[in-house]
Structure formats: structure tokens, C-alpha cells
């Protein structure tokens, strides 16, 4: 194998086919970047889910002196006997795994932690304004919600019952929708990339039909005839992938990580996640270009 000769042929091929090669690289880059973005979204959603899995799923907020809802206004802040009876009733329910009481002090600490990035906001809120609550962990995630909520809703001392999952579902559907859209576009673009690789290689083979016919005539092996085209395809795939990798780093650091700031918790994707997606994109890009080139050539350069 004369590497220098093959590379020289590859260079000639890429140069002669420059516009097509650029188009190919751009399409490969964009389709890989979108595919990678989709995968990053999937990972983000997974991570968020895992993060919340161990968390409380139902919060029963109690009335405080500053609560504004009409029932709190009517009944006044929760008394200690009301708290005790609510706690006892919750514990009796079979759907409940466990319950614990979060005092105003603890709630205030959590609040300050969650919004630590926004000190101007935390400074405005006083401890007295943060309600104490019962945090309820359910046995069967969603099924028990109605029963549990029904038991305590409207009782004196109870302000409101909040399902944490319902807050998250908005975020989930946002991420999920974005992910689906990105994936659909990525698949369409990948198909376009495959067709473009096939076309570029065919054009390249047509441009070099003199060379290839002479190569066949003087007894070059099929492998040797096809190799420059194959390498051409793979190089275009690799350059496209490099651009895609850059785009993916940008998507993570500028897109997903920034998005996190708008939510009161911090679940960033790790560098390992990003590397995994980028490596996957490379394998996919190289295979896509390599296999397409190979199949196109088999049809086009048949002896």
C-alpha cells in the first residue's frame, strides 16, 4: 500500500469536487450536530428525572400569618393541633410511603439555596413568608395523588396541595418536544447527507473515470481503485464531524447550561456525557460516509 499515492489521489479528488465536498461537509456537520443535540436533550431529561426521583412528590403547604388564599384568611394560620391531625391522617393513608414536616426555618434554607444565583430575590423574601409544609412521598408515584390530596385539601390550616410532578411535567414536555423536533430534523438531514455522499462520490468517480478505467486496465485491485473514493468520503465525514463536535460543545455550554439558570435547580450534563455524544457522532459520521461511499462505488465501478 502506497499511502502517499493514495492520499495524493484523494487530495486531487476533493479539490476537483470542491463545491460538492463543501456541501457534503456542511450537511454532515449539521445533521451530526442535530443528532447529537437530540441525544444531549435525551440525557438532560434523564438526568432531571433521576434528580427528582428521590425527591418528594407532594407538598401540603400550611397556612401562615402572611398567607393570602381565602381559606387561610378564613381559618387563620395552622395551629399545632391542626398540624398534628393532618400528619396523623396522612400517615394512615395506604398510598403514602412516608411524611415529614418541613418547618419554616428549613423551607427558608432550601429557598435560599435554590435561588442562590439570584440574591436580589432572596433578599426580598423573609422567613415568615415561606410556609411550612408536609412533604409526602407516595408509594405509587401518580396513582395516589388524588386520594391524598382529597384527604387534606380544604382542611383548616391547609393552604394548598401541590404535585411536584405537575410542575416538572411542563419542563419535561418542553425538553421532550424540543428533543423530538431536533431528532426529526436530524433524521431528515441524515437521509439528505447519505444521498449527498452518494452523489458526491458518484460525481467524483465520473470526474476520474479515465483514471479508474486505466487503473482497472493495468490490473489495480478493486480495493485500490475504490480506496481513494472511500477515503474521500471518510475525510469529508471526519471534517463534518469536527464542526459538529464544536457545535455540540456550544449547544451544551451556551444552550442547555444556560437554560438551567431559569429553573430553581442545577442539573448540568457532565463532560463525560458530552464526550460520549461526540464520540457517538463520530462513529456514526464515519460509518455513514464510509458505507455510503462503498455501496455507491460497488454499483458505479463494477468491472
Amino acid at each position, binding site marked *: 500500500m502506497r499511502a502517499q499515492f493514495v492520499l495524493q489521489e484523494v487530495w486531487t479528488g476533493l479539490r476537483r469536487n470542491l463545491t460538492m465536498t463543501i456541501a457534503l461537509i456542511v450537511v454532515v456537520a449539521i445533521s451530526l450536530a442535530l443528532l447529537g443535540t437530540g441525544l444531549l436533550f435525551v440525557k438532560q431529561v434523564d438526568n432531571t428525572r433521576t434528580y427528582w426521583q428521590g425527591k418528594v412528590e407532594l407538598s401540603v403547604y400550611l397556612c401562615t400569618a402572611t398567607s393570602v388564599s381565602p381559606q387561610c384568611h378564613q381559618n387563620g394560620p395552622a395551629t399545632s393541633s391542626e398540624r398534628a391531625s393532618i400528619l396523623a391522617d396522612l400517615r394512615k393513608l395506604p398510598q403514602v410511603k412516608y411524611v415529614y414536616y418541613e418547618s419554616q426555618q428549613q423551607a427558608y434554607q432550601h429557598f435560599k439555596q435554590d435561588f442562590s444565583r439570584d440574591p436580589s430575590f432572596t433578599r426580598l423574601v423573609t422567613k415568615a413568608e415561606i410556609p411550612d409544609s408536609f412533604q409526602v412521598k407516595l408509594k405509587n408515584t401518580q396513582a395516589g395523588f388524588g386520594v391524598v390530596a382529597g384527604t387534606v385539601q380544604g382542611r383548616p390550616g391547609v393552604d394548598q396541595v401541590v404535585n411536584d410532578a405537575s410542575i416538572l411535567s411542563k419542563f419535561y414536555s418542553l425538553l421532550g418536544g424540543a428533543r423530538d423536533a431536533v431528532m426529526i430534523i436530524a433524521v431528515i438531514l441524515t437521509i439528505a447527507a447519505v444521498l449527498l455522499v452518494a452523489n458526491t462520490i458518484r460525481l467524483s468517480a465520473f470526474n476520474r473515470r479515465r483514471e479508474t478505467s*486505466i487503473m482497472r486496465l493495468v490490473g489495480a485491485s478493486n480495493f485500490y481503485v475504490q480506496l481513494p473514493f472511500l477515503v474521500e468520503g471518510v475525510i469529508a465525514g471526519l471534517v463534518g464531524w469536527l464542526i459538529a463536535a464544536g457545535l455540540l460543545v456550544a449547544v451544551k455550554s451556551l444552550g442547555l447550561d444556560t437554560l438551567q439558570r431559569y429553573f430553581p435547580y442545577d442539573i448540568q450534563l457532565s463532560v463525560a456525557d458530552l464526550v460520549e455524544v461526540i464520540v457517538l457522532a463520530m462513529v456514526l459520521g464515519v460509518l455513514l460516509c464510509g458505507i455510503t461511499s462503498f455501496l455507491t462505488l460497488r454499483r458505479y465501478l463494477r468491472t
Partner: protein
Amino acid sequence: MIHFDNVTKTYPNQSRPALENVSLDVEKGEFVFLVGPSGSGKSTFLRLILREERPTEGRILVAGKDLARLGNWKVPHLRRRIGCVFQDFRLLPNKNVYANVAFALQVIGKPRRFIRKVVPEVIDLVGLEGKHDRMPDELSGGEQQRVAVARAFVNRPMILLADEPTGNIDPATSIGIMKVLDRINRTGTTVVMATHDAAIVDSMRKRVIELEFGKVVRDQSRGVYGQAY
């Protein structure tokens, strides 16, 4: 060296065979002219030897190998032992004389040192010494054909096939090409040349095989172009 045994070749969608029941032998080191009008089957004969086509019927042996039994992946190795020259030269226009000849060795993976040694020798052999750096469009037709011959011969094939090599060249220059082919033949290479050029056939006095409508109508050692009475 070349053995045809009752070979018939019918192209798809054609009723009349391009070659019909052709049986002949070409020995090692022979020089054979293949003559006959256009469409008489000369090119088909050459394409069958190269295994660019497969015969419809019959058996072909080239250098002792049965082409029907030769796997597709072995065809390149067969072609390395056969050199080819065409009427239209088929040089690469963007490569100079040296690169055109070297190309034939590069694509079969010969080492650079070997290429640097043999390419100048062959260029000298065909009479193009000192013209290594010329591009094909800077050469006359005769010189371009010499480059093509050099490329066909550089890997020292056992057989050299020439399909009307003087077809695009004036008679005076053709004599020079024939001298080169004769020189190559003298090294022991079997030469099979399809041609319409009566003057050349008559002057060379080599074996002549005449084809007509795909059949061998004459096979004569030391023959001439026209019918000999």
C-alpha cells in the same frame, strides 16, 4: 499463451454472434496481426482475452489460466500480465510522461524505488528519452502513442494487446510505433495487434488472422493484409 477453444460470444439483445466458433492458439513470443473489417469481432477478441467480457460458449486459456474459472478478485492479477494499447492513447491529460507511465506501477502497489528505476528505462525503450516532463498535449500523436506503449509495457507483461495502435497516426510515424512494438516482441512478449493498416501488415510479414462476421476466415503465418492467392 492464448488458447481459444470453440469460443462464441453473443452480446445481449443481438441475434448475430460477435464471435462464432473461434478456435486458435497464439504461442509465447509470437507477433499476430488481427485483421478484418469493422464489426468483424477483433475488439471482442481482445476484450475476451482481458476478461472484460465472458464468452457465451467455449473455453479461453490465457497464460495457462482458464478464464471461466478465474474468480472476479483474480482478474486484476490477470490484467497485470497483459499490456494494452488503444487507438485513442488513453493518457491522463493532467500527468506528464513520467507520471503517466509510473501510474501503471503505482496503482498496483509497486515500491517507489522500483518505479524510479524502471520507468526511465521504458521511456528510453520507446524512444522518448529527455521528454519525461512533457504533458500529453505537448506531444505529437506518435509520441503520445509511445507513452501509451511504455505504460502498457512497464510492468513487463507476457502479452501486449494493441487495438489499432496506428489508427490515429500518419504512416511515417506509424513505422516508428511498429519498430517499438517489434522491439518489445523481441524481448519475448507476445503481441496481438488488431489493425486496418494494410501497409504495416504487408511490411512486417508476421502471422495474420483474418476475421469476418465473427469467424476466422484466414490464419496464415508470414501473411499479408489482403487475401493471398
